[in-house]
């Protein structure tokens, strides 16, 4: 077979070398800029938050975190009520969301494995929960959950167990409790999805070892799978906590928006995110704005710490597997 005339410019031409160098370097430089932009954005966020809360930081210092009075009229700002509200609602959300999310994850990862369609539909439904916007949760919570909880849960609990500090105030429905329930529903998809991946990452050899000792399916789950997955599930919980802490719209629509520190779940309250949402556009003088920015800074710090903690836990458990949250 004779060779046709060459169609390719071969060889060591410096022209092609220049062309190639440029193309590779340009692409790398361009996408590296995008990567740098990401870093710059996060750093910029932190820096701007710190800079613009300087007025408030210098005026109140640490007492900002311990102060219980939030009085814009008299220029007194203390963030403790909001911190309190954020913590209470988030803890409540976890208390409900963790068992439910874990239960769903166990179902999806252990029980529904054989019945594909079942598991797939269910998994989709739970994921769709995550796709519902926060403001819709708030709207539904305000118009449906509040009256239901007030009449069927809070009312009875207050009537019969009103001596317990938790249930001591007269329930109007717009309170810590409702906010906690809404948050719980919102973080269930996070906890269940991550937990499910964690459970799937538990090596089969662990299950098989327990089976060969004569355990039932549930015993295998309780004694082999869950203990192994413990730190991963803890990490999933913390991730859910992170989401709850940052949640704004749904909370502000059902929590009552009054800064209060109290033992009663049925009292109105306020969270860090909610106060920013409500008052930022009303802040009429620089100190006020600065105080709100500082609240944003606290939120930033909280979210960052929680996030890093969660990643650490999950990383520890899945160190040797290819796993990404």
């Amino acid at each position, binding site marked *: *077979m004779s*060779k*046709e005339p*060459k*169609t*390719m410019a*071969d*060889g*060591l*031409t*410096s022209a*092609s*070398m220049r062309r*190639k160098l440029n193309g590779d370097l340009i692409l790398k430089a361009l996408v590296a800029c995008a990567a740098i932009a990401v870093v710059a954005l996060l750093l910029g966020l932190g820096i701007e938050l710190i800079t613009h809360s300087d007025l408030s930081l210098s005026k109140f210092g640490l007492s900002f975190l311990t102060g219980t009075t939030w009085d814009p009229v008299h220029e007194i700002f203390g963030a403790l009520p909001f911190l309190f509200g954020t913590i209470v609602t988030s803890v409540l959300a976890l208390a409900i969301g963790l068992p439910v999310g874990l239960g769903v994850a166990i179902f999806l990862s252990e029980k529904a494995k054989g019945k594909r369609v079942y598991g797939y539909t269910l998994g989709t439904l739970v994921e769709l929960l995550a796709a519902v916007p926060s403001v819709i949760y708030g709207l539904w919570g305000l118009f449906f959950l509040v009256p239901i909880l007030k009449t069927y849960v809070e009312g009875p609990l207050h009537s019969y167990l009103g001596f317990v500090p938790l249930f001591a105030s007269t329930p109007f429905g717009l309170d810590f409790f409702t906010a906690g329930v809404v948050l719980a529903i919102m973080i269930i998809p996070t906890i269940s999805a991550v937990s499910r991946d964690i459970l799937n990452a538990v090596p089969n050899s662990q299950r098989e070892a327990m089976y060969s000792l004569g355990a039932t399916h549930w015993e295998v789950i309780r004694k082999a799978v869950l203990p192994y997955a413990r730190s991963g599930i803890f990490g999933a919980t913390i991730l859910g906590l992170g989401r709850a802490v940052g949640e704004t719209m749904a909370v502000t629509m059902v929590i009552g928006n009054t800064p209060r520190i109290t033992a009663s779940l049925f009292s109105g309250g306020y969270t860090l995110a909610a106060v920013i949402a409500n008052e930022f556009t009303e802040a009429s003088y620089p100190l006020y704005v600065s105080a709100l920015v500082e609240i944003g800074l606290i939120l930033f710090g909280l979210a960052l710490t929680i996030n890093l903690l969660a990643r650490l836990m999950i990383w520890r458990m899945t160190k040797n597997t290819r796993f990404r949250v």
Partner: protein
Amino acid sequence: MEQSGSHVSSTKFETKELKAGFGRNMVLNGINLRIPQNRITAVMGPSGCGKTTFIRCLNRLHELTPGATVGGEALLDGENIYDRNVDPVAIRRRIGMVFQKPNPFPTMSIYHNVVAGLTLNGVGDKKVLNHAAEQSLRSAYLWDEVKDKLTNSGASLSGGQQQRLCIARALAVEPEVLLMDEPCSALDPTATAKIEELISNLKRDYTIIIVTHNMQQASRVADYTAFFYLGKLIEFDETATLFENPKEELTERYITGKFG
């Protein structure tokens, strides 16, 4: 280490003290080898002997792995491809490579797969492309099977056909050397036989280096065989001589199956 038999044809590729490794691990320790032109040279040896690293040094693919190190010289037609002024991309156009598992581009049709090396380097002339496609597919013994379905996806072919497609793709840029890394190891015996047949025909126009762990394949297909062990070239000779009358004890032990 003695090298004989290469006086029959001229040398296409010569390595001088070629070393290669990853980080602090040396995989190749000073290889001196002369690859004859227009012949089929098999590179053989047990797992971990460096044979794949060796051919990946010949088309400068090895250095693309992060942490990879290369030393020494590799002379293509007398010129060192590792010289500072040399553009690796241009080198790779003169040297084709076929991989262990067939890897056609999944988003391209058969036709576009074959001419990918041309189109992605700026060749747009339809006549040129069609001609190159047909020629390469014929050389790869695939033309008759696909000529009516050139627009089908490259992934729609069987394993053996895919590998021949990859061979056609490599041939379409008209390289001078063809590197083949265990091209038949993922294929069944029928597909393997077909590819071995086409390789034997290719040597008229190309210099072929084929890595193989299959001694029977080497003796069927290769004119010359190089035996590597633990990163060193142990012996290089005409295939028949190497198999029937190996000069090194290590070679003899490998051939007689004393280690894998």
